[in-house]
């Protein structure tokens, strides 16, 4: 298919890799922030054919993985109510809460439905005036414009039976938190192309300057990723630290103005807890004052629930890039994509699931 096949050409990928091998003279550690990129890198084995010493760390950019346990537990509490139709992107259904997941709740009779787009949830509310339709509004800057538009449409339609449980996260504060952490090893970032398609890259410029870290806006196909890595390594080798754009065909410096305007009307920046990572200032989105009538959290007054992670799961270290899934004692045994004990095993964007789907075992990734 156009704009996909060309960027998967193995012959061109090999040329890029050759160039990368010619360019890299020293070891470098690069983080791809986005789980979609992790998926491509691991599935294609890109991280295994890099020059010796060039190492990819898989970042926290998996929305399913970082949605806080408390939000999942709230979703479960709301979805259990008889008047509620609970709607969600499909990959949130198997995310383990403290006690079970949405799929299990549905099996026990709750009305939990998968929607492809949040506009489908708005339509459900229009079609079911006697029910409360709640949408689980999670994700990064890529899903925020869609979720914001759903709220706006519901407001325009005067719907009183539609609300959103918001747990949005933002990428730049996570990059800052990673650079600030005392055990940070990351020397360059591949920024998520689609996040930047919405937001542009101006937010990253002060980060590159402040930390002296190259940040390359990168696409999602194999050629994009190898070229992104090459662009990062070139900067590192030359001692530069700039924001560069590999994904020129889809990303403009200021992003998508129309989307940013709607996001700014519906959402405000807030403190957010990231599952496995902790609380980061200014790292999330919540509804603005004007739209609090659509806040499911307020409408259903879910109390703070006491939350409990599976004690064997090392997701926090995996999301920070300090350990690999294969370091986890239950990886591939008690924890598999069919029986996930932690969020990173749920969606293909999670590092544990990406490793498992690519058939990586503890043996094949032993280092040194």
């Amino acid at each position, binding site marked *: 298919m156009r704009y996909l096949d060309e960027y998967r050409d193995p012959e061109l990928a090999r*040329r890029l890799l050759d160039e990368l091998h010619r360019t890299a003279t020293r070891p470098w550690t690069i983080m791809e922030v986005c789980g979609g990129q992790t998926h491509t890198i691991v599935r294609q084995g890109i991280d295994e054919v890099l020059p010796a010493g060039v190492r990819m760390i898989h970042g926290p950019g998996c929305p399913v993985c970082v949605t806080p346990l408390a939000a999942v537990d709230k979703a479960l509490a709301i979805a259990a109510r008889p008047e509620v139709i609970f709607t969600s992107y499909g990959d949130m259904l198997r995310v383990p809460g403290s006690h079970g997941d949405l799929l299990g709740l549905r099996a026990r009779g709750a009305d939990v439905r998968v929607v*492809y787009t949040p506009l489908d949830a708005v339509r459900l509310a229009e079609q079911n005036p006697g029910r409360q339709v709640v949408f689980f509004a999670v994700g990064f800057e890529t899903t925020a*414009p869609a979720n914001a538009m759903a709220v706006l449409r519901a407001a325009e339609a005067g719907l009183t039976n539609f609300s959103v449980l918001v747990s949005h996260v933002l990428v730049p504060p996570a990059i800052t938190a990673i650079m600030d952490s005392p055990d940070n090893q990351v020397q360059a970032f591949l920024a998520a192309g689609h996040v930047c398609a919405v937001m542009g890259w101006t937010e990253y410029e002060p980060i590159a300057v402040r930390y002296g870290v190259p940040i390359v806006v990168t696409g999602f196909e194999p050629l994009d990723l190898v070229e992104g890595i090459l662009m990062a390594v070139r900067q590192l080798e030359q001692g530069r630290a700039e924001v560069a754009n590999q994904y020129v065909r889809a990303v403009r410096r200021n992003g998508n103005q129309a989307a940013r305007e709607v996001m700014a009307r519906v959402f405000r920046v807030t403190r957010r807890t990231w599952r496995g990572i902790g609380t980061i200032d200014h790292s999330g989105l919540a509804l603005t004052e004007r739209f609090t009538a659509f806040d499911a959290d307020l409408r259903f007054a879910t109390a703070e629930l006491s939350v409990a992670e599976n004690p064997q799961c090392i997701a926090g270290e995996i999301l920070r890039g300090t350990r690999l899934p294969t370091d986890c004692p239950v990886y591939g045994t008690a924890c598999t994509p069919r029986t996930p004990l932690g969020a990173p095993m749920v969606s293909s964007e999670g590092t544990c699931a990406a490793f498992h789907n690519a058939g990586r075992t503890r043996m094949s990734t032993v280092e040194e």
Partner: protein
Amino acid sequence: MCLGIPGRIVEIQPDGRAMGTVDFDGVRRSVCLAYTPEARPGDYVVVHVGFAISTVDPDEAARTLAVIRAIPDALAAELGTA
């Protein structure tokens, strides 16, 4: 949910609601085009959760590929096929 893919706009509904049909290699879906008001039928857009968030620039797409194709092919040179 976070995976965006490019698709080609087949048609834009004339009712002003900014909805259109996008073809993803044979699979057609209804997509909200409110965030890409400049897009026309035939254009490629990147779609996330039912919303086009960006148009694909064909000139830039070609340029990226040309840059990669221009990388000297060491292997072919060695095999004498360059």
